[in-house]
């Protein structure tokens, strides 16, 4: 390649040589099957992309060109046409990468420009507002928990909050700020570290997007369009500026995509050092994405599909031996499955090691889990060893994330079985979880040493707070219609025969004692023969969204029908220290995942809350209030730059049309010149990858039952912007369909300028959304945003 330094004429020759080389492929396949044509075009793609590597061979091809040209005169003519027509425009197009010193400085200048702009837009006014905004109240708090080493429960995996905590710790935040509610003033607390960390990660997004598009389309224009859209999008700026998980998540997502694309570029030299580097980086980023939020699964899916497609291509390459393919396969298994899995597990290991003090999340977990936490009442617990009559106990279901047996002063509503007191399972520790153990016949506890409960005994459980007995009868349970209803019945512990339960220790024999915490106990209803069961279904509003408890007529032994005695208070018995079985790490891991998934699906939309629908998002229908409502307050409103978002939306449609036209043209065998062929290839391969990314990060939300927010769209929006870059670039390049060369070139430049200025001007108009606004609301003429409320649904 050094041959061609700075010599425009040779450069041009080289370009035409490539065109003809591409053409010779074209000629060969003209009568081939459509499938082989597809793979051939792929070949052309990869040849073009790896021009550097193949340059010497191209030289040879170039030497042998005339022969080819003679063989096919008409075609040679058309290819010449193509190169000529693209003469003006392709000056910067065809020579990419062939002219290192000047071009590379040029491209690094551009990259630097993108980086600087990105950082400056994100870090500007990072300290404002000096109060807690929106979800900072959660994630800031959780960051503080890491600094204080207090155990908590969250529906997301821990990496994001760990990084926030770390950033805070490094920059001198001491974890003392309580983060009680949005709007609290930070005062003297050091919050800039956490915000700055998120903003720095957020600043990398446009840079990564620039590099990805550059890699996919080999065009700086396309990459610059993408970077412009992202840098000047108010939504991306706002979401990067606060202590949130999203910038961290998107950093890892984009990092994974970038490494994947870079990895793909290394196809021609497998198992080299850069090949391994990008593979490993992809894996690391995947682990990071999944470690922040479960949304990371979508990018894993994207990388997985891409890798599978890759391997399928390798399998079809008959030059590779099966051993080679196996090597490829195993390398990817190690890099993309085992390594991320290992890292992910490590994240959790650190999480559990760091958080060793009891905190607000204890009740979600099993007794064994809780015993690990310093300060929990089960940590180094001491209580009477065997269950006795007259004791006060709490009963916990053994299903993972099963709750405590619970009752409260509320009745089942009309039409749900008998209108008696509700009995539920409740995940939090509460006074209403306490039950008293009685013999079947007497109420008051006798004096002297109490008798112990044995396997097979008939007992009565009295709810301590309401003095109702645990009761069941032949009515349908509220949700699980095949089971019987469980209620609280009677008053002051006098009830009827339906209040009697037989205690059975699983695997025990008659007469065995019931060990606290360690025995698995079943409660069999005496009258109907059913077994006390926690179905795991959440009751509707009348049941305070607690978990249903039923009496199951199916006596299969499942964790749902097994209970353990957790707290045991009996002053008449000696307390002994219980050395509990420490749970295995994998058990904790599994348990915490099940709890997280339950928690996620439990986030149902509330009735009077206006929830966001997925179709709102791409049209930028409605934003999110980050801070401030009234005229006097400092307001920040998360809303994408409408011009950017609507351009994205339009280019999605445009892309589909363009790719359809291109595909039909290829399928019908319409003769196309080399440049167009290349465009089709970029549209189909690069664009296809990005479209898939967009779909994977957007479509699944339609099936989710949980509550959704506007900011869930941002990862998809990144993909959409990258797609826009490619689409618009190729659209502008195709102007020569309309006009003759010099004019088409001008039209193209005008289009680019128009795009740039519309984005910049709209950013100028809407920048107060991100950087804060005060004063009257937008519907009043005095406001800074007057006249900019283009949609009624925007609330600023």
């Amino acid at each position, binding site marked *: 390649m050094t041959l061609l330094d700075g010599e425009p004429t040779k450069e041009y020759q080289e370009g035409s040589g490539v065109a003809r080389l591409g053409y010779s492929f074209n000629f060969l396949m003209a*009568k081939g099957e*459509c499938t082989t044509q597809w793979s051939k075009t792929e070949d052309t793609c990869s040849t073009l992309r790896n021009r550097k590597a193949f340059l010497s061979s191209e030289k040879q091809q170039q030497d042998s060109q005339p022969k080819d040209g003679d063989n096919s005169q008409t075609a040679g003519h058309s290819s010449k046409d193509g190169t000529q027509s693209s003469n003006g425009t392709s000056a910067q197009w065809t020579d990419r990468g062939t002219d290192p010193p000047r071009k590379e400085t040029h491209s690094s200048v551009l990259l630097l420009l993108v980086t600087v702009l990105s950082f400056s837009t994100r870090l500007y006014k990072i300290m404002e507002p000096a109060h807690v905004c929106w979800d900072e109240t959660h994630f800031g708090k959780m960051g503080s928990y890491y600094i204080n080493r207090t155990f908590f429960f969250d529906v997301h995996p821990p990496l994001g909050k760990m990084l926030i905590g770390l950033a805070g710790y490094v920059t001198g935040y001491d974890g003392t700020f309580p983060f009680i509610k949005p709007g609290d003033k930070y005062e003297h607390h050091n919050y800039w570290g956490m915000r700055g960390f998120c903003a720095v990660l957020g600043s990398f997004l446009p840079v990564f997007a620039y590099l990805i598009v550059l890699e996919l389309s080999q065009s700086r224009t396309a990459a610059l369009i993408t970077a412009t859209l992202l840098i000047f999008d108010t939504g991306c700026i706002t979401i990067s500026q606060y202590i949130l998980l999203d910038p961290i998540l998107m950093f890892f997502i984009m990092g994974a995509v970038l490494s994947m694309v870079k990895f793909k570029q290394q196809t021609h030299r497998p198992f080299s050092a850069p090949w391994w580097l990008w593979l490993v980086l992809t894996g690391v980023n995947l682990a990071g994405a999944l470690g922040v939020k479960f949304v990371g699964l979508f990018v894993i899916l994207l990388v997985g599909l891409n890798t599978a497609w890759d391997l*399928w291509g390798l*399998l*079809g390459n*008959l030059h590779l031996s*099966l051993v080679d393919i196996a090597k490829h396969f195993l390398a990817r298994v190690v890099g993309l499955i085992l390594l991320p899995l290992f890292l992910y597990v490590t994240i959790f290991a650190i999480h559990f090691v760091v958080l060793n003090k009891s905190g607000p999340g204890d009740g979600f977990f099993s007794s064994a889990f809780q015993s690990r936490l310093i300060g929990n009442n089960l940590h180094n617990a001491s209580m009477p060893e065997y269950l006795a009559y007259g004791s006060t106990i709490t009963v916990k279901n053994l299903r993972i994330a099963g709750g405590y047996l619970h009752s409260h002063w509320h009745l089942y509503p009309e039409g749900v079985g008998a209108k008696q007191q509700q009995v539920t399972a409740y995940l939090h520790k509460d006074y209403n979880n306490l039950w008293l153990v009685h013999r079947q016949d007497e109420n008051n506890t006798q004096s002297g040493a109490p008798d112990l409960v044995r396997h097979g005994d008939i007992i009565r459980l009295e709810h301590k707070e309401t003095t109702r007995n645990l009761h069941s009868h032949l009515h349908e349970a509220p*949700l*699980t*219609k*095949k089971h019987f209803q469980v209620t609280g019945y009677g008053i002051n512990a006098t009830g009827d025969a339906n209040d009697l339960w037989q205690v059975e220790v699983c695997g025990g024999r008659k007469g065995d004692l019931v060990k606290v915490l360690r025995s698995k106990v079943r409660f069999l209803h005496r009258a109907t023969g059913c077994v006390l069961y926690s179905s795991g279904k959440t009751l509707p509003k009348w049941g305070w969204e607690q978990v249903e408890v039923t009496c199951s007529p199916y006596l299969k032994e499942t964790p749902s029908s097994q209970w353990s005695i957790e707290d045991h208070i009996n002053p008449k018995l000696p307390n002994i220290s219980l050395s509990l079985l420490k749970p295995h790490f994998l058990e904790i891991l599994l348990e915490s995942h099940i709890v997280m998934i339950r928690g996620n699906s439990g986030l149902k939309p509330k*009735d*009077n809350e*206006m929830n966001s629908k997925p179709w709102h998002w791409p049209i930028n*229908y*409605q934003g999110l209030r980050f801070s401030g409502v009234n005229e006097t307050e400092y307001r920040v409103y998360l809303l994408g730059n409408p011009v950017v978002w609507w351009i994205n939306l339009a280019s999605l449609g445009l892309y589909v049309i363009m790719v359809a036209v291109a595909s*039909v043209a290829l*399928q*019908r*065998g319409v003769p196309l010149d080399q440049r167009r062929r290349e465009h089709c290839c970029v549209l189909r391969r690069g664009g296809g990858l990005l479209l898939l990314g967009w779909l994977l990060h957007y479509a699944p939300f339609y*099936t989710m*039952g949980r509550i959704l927010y506007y900011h869930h769209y941002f990862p998809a929006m990144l993909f959409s912007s990258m797609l826009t870059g490619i689409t618009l670039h190729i659209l502008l390049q195709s102007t020569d369909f309309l006009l003759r060369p010099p004019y088409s070139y001008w039209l193209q430049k005008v289009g680019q300028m128009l795009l740039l200025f519309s984005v910049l001007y709209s950013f100028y108009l809407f920048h107060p959304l991100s950087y804060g606004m005060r004063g009257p609301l937008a519907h009043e003429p005095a406001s800074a945003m007057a006249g900019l409320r283009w949609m*009624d*649904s925007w*609330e600023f």
Partner: protein
Amino acid sequence: MLGLQLPLLVTVQINMELLLLTLLAFWTRLSQLSYPNAVVFDEVYYGQFVSLYMKRVFFIDESGPPLGHMILAVGGYVCVCLCVCVCVCVCVCVCVCSCAEYPSGVCVWSLRLLPAVCGSLCVPLVYLLILELRLTHCTALGAALLLLLENSLIVQSRFMLLESVLIFFQLLSFLCYLRFHNAPHSSWSRYCWLLLSGASCAAAVGVKYMGVFSYLLLLGVACLHTWQLIGDRAVSHVSVCVQCVCRCVCLLLVPLLLYVFWFYVHLSVLYRSGPHDQLMSSAFQASLEGGLSRITQGQPLEVAFGSQVTLRSSASQPVPCWLHSHKANYPIRYDNGRGSSHQQQVTCYPFKDVNNWWIIKDPGRQELVVSTPPHPVRHGDIIQLVHGMTSRFLNSHDVAAPMSPHAQEVSGYIDFNVSMPAQNLWRVEIFNREAESEVWKTILSEVRLVHVNTSAVLKLSGVSLPDWGFRQLEVVADKLNKGHQSSLSWTVEEHRYGTSQEQKEREAELHSPTHIDVDSNISFWAKFLELQWKMLTVKQEESEHKYSSSPLEWITMETNIAYWLHPSTNAQIHLIGNPVSWGVANLSLSAYQLLALVYLLRRRRGIKDLPDDAWSQFVAVGWLCVGGWAVNFLPFFLMEKTLFLYHYLPALCFLFLLTPALLEHTHSHLLRCSSPAALCVCALAAAASVFLSYRTFCPLTYGRPELSANQLQDLRWRESWDILYRRR
């Protein structure tokens, strides 16, 4: 001129196999159809709908489009016809005919006839479908036998249920498409087949929404074939264009039009008001005979200052209701200690009442009568609303509402002289003014009432008030007026021009019924869109049924459904499949997937185990059978409604096609050298065991003969099956 050649010869070729299969199918599905002479399982629902069809009463069934109900209703009409015939005969003899004395068997038989016929026709369809896949007659016979001897399909066809109809149309659409695809490419008559395919797709979708997924599968395959056509350079551009357009018309346009046509029939047949009226908008209700249209007939159209109106909330959740007020004030303090304005309550009341009347007043005028000529209210006008019976002004202010404290309270203003001034101006915003007009119209206009002082919007919160509010629904003024919500908009339902000056006269006037006349009709398209939207959005109460099950349990048939139990004996009918067939089908599914994987990998490495035509046949079997199974099964995992075993039956039918096809593939391509005789023996043995298990479960399929408790116990092959015995 073409002369007629004599003798006239007609050559008829009859495939005896096919004929025999059809007859057997009819025999298994149609024999003793009217037994049991009782309502079985979901026949309760379908029976109701059929009777509503007979009475021409409008209803909504959110479970599916109307074609299925219409097909069942045809059975009902047949019943009536037969009854009339019988009546005539009886009349001749006895001269007394009371329709209560129909011979009851006739009706049951005719209502169940059409599903049973559809179910029986599935058997020959499967036979033909296999032949279209270019497989042998033996294979076709095998598939048809599997279908013929499947107990669950028999049970489901023999009652007034829709699954067999759905399966029939699905199979028909695939058969027609394959006919089209296999026909020589030069003939244009093959487009008849495509048209028929599109039509039966529309019918399948019209019976149950599940049909959409098999329609999508068919579309996908058609797209693929069209794509190959586009790639065929031998065909001219024009020809390609014409063929593409033809395919689009047959597979996209025709089904769409037919689907709308089902609704057209549905809406034109059902023109009377009925139990589900309340779910629809006022305009829709007014178009039905009886019900609302009886009241609104002849009302003045344009709402004017001085009009007396009732305002209905557009939200039908939780119940449809009207803006209401009564002589009772908000309590000074609520249970939770918050205070109120103690002014007169304004609520939403789900019943017609004289207290629902409001008078629209011009803030600039004192009179409460309509001037001549009437001065109509337009979008953007400021009005006051006066409650007809108590003469209080509709008012809102910065006081938290009783149940939704984030919103403002709405009250009938009482001046307690506590520096709480009246804020009773409301601006009228007509939401659908583009579609209708700027003038506020009765029934047609959807209006938002915006409070002038606070710009909050009058809204139905949907929460019921406690006892002090007589359990009526709460009305608030909400500032968060995000977008269009039905709870924010109101329509005028009853309307008349006020004429009385005095309060007493006015009260008398309000008590009297309205009567003036104008006619309001809405177009079919508006009705169609509204009905379609309601059907897709109205949520069923999610509840678990005793026999409901989850999709994973279907593959292994973990559960059954008890359809009917004789009131005194042990005779009973269950939806239980033929366990042997299910086992074989599942086996073949996994075998196919395994084979496909091996073939694919080996082909990719350039090793061609199969010749090209055999491979394309193998692929065709795959997309039809495995694809059909997948599209009819997998979507259930995403559904949140109550699911039953019978939802699996369409998927199962496609699996039954797979088993013999795979057997033939094994025979002709995998076992070429080793003994094919062994395979034949295996196939025969399998067929025999299918037949045996069919015989075994027959008593539970047909409900007779009655079995003893011990025999029933023996039939309980699985622990989880629920078979009922009577304790003696």
